[in-house]
């Protein structure tokens, strides 16, 4: 029977996968998916801690995070689309006009 600490560990694992994913992947959409994974890991931990503390606020906060994530998708995909249209590529390595 998994206890709350297992869920916290799972959420930390998901968060790490997301954080490492952002560093190693090159496609902007995949990068963005990894960031969403980090936010969802946070949601899982929120709900777990809410259960642990017997406090409803954590669950309410998870809803806030979902709404923020949705807003972020809208802005993020718009910007990535903009880049893709002009360069025909969503790879972050191709966005190389600005450097040094």
């Amino acid at each position, binding site marked *: 029977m998994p206890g709350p600490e297992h869920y916290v560990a799972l959420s930390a694992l998901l968060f790490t996968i997301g954080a490492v994913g952002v560093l190693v992947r090159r496609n902007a959409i995949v990068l963005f998916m990894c960031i969403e994974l980090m936010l969802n890991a946070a949601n899982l931990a929120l709900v777990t801690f809410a259960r642990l503390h017997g406090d409803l606020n*954590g669950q309410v906060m998870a809803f806030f995070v979902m709404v923020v994530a949705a807003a972020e998708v809208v802005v993020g995909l718009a910007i990535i689309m903009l880049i893709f249209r002009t360069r025909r590529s969503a790879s972050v390595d191709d966005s190389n006009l600005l450097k040094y």
Partner: protein
Amino acid sequence: MTTDFQLPAIDYQAISPLLILFGVACLGVLVEAFVPRPARRRVQLGMALVGVLAALGAVVLLAGTNVVTAGGSVTVDGPALFMQGALLAFGVVALLLIGERRVEPGGAFVAQPAITVGSEADQRQASAPGATEVFPLAMFSLGGMALFIAASDLLTMFIALELLSLPLYLMCALARRHRLISQEAAVKYFLLGAYASGFFLFGVVLAYGYAGSVDLAAIHAAVDTSQMNPALLYAALALIVMGLLFKTAAAPFHVWAPDVYQGAPTPITAFMAACTKVAAFGALLRVTYVAFERLAWDWLPVIGVIAVLTMLVGAVLAVTQTDLKRLLAYSSIANAGFVLVGVLAVGRTGASSAMFYLVAYGFAVLGAFAVISLVRDREGETTHLSRWAGLGRRSPLVAGVFTVVMLALAGIPLTGGFTAKFAVFSAALEVGEGWLVIAGVVSSVIIAFPYLRVVVMMWLSEPSESTATMVAPGLLTGTALGIGALAVVGLGVVPGPVLDLAHDAALFLR
């Protein structure tokens, strides 16, 4: 678990600046939908300016208030009001730059940013008047910043962080000229910003796990009493501070700043440099002073190392830059380090010196970007250093303003920059952080070189064929320039009133 729900008491007067800002932002969205296109820009600019000035008036009327309201999610205290005031004053100047249309026909913003660069439709829109959506976006961002400074629980702070960031990402992509680098700046800022706010959010969650609440005061209380594993607390502290240091552009979380500052439309860069800095340091001060004060001995050395690194990286890399916007980006990184020195002098003097520094820096940097928006050739703004050679001979007045601003950033006496640096360094010395002061003085000396090089180039070189032209500033940019120069000199010659105001305001309400 409790099931009954009680409506929180809301002190509407205390949050009136926020209500005004968000109200004007929402009205701005309606204006976009219902007001005919030719009239929109006047309506939007007028509404935004009136809104920010009204919010500034509300902040002034609230002076001396100390209250926690809206169910414990907003704190209106001295530091919040002081920094909101500074933020809104910068907001007015930034809005003047955003609204300018004389300097570039149609304004600095493109009409339809979604149109692919280089397509036929793009060529047709080349001379169309710019998008006016930028005004409601800027207002939402300003509202988010004002809330960020005053947030007294971490969830509100996270929402405010997103609220200030999302419009900024969009505004970065709106440049009329050099659209490719503007879009690139937006995508870089967005990906890195969302990444950093992911870290911030996970820190918030861990703090909730440790303390059972995200309220800053509750976390402060839980530091002594919680039964949970202290590793949660330290991880929370590290992740939250990392998220905030990203927004302040402190090394090693600074890599986005040069690209974004260079690529974004200049009025937006000015807005970011002045306003985001205030908002981020406001939140950083509140989190470290209110929630994690009992851990000060743990975070002081770490943030101290970050401060030294930030000052040195910013100063040394500024020396190697040949593009003015990029140079100012590195200067903003170095200045973030100087403000951190003030933050690290934990206490009233430290907080007040950091707040004064933010005011002095904000006006100087707004003035600098106002001048940058005026130096142009056929392609748009020319920010390469070599093109500025001899500008002082051609347009002495504006070049004079730029000189004053550069001297202020370099920290020459009788400018705001000197007073501000003196304030943060003496605050750090008072608490015995001499090593920070040594690093600070060394980096001030290093970074004075690139500033003075620009000044020397402008005045002592002969104008040549490659020298850019200085466009005469319109009323809006002219006003912005005047405010910037006056504030920089004023804060240097008679810093007393603002220093006293900062000192009186610098007590956080827990």
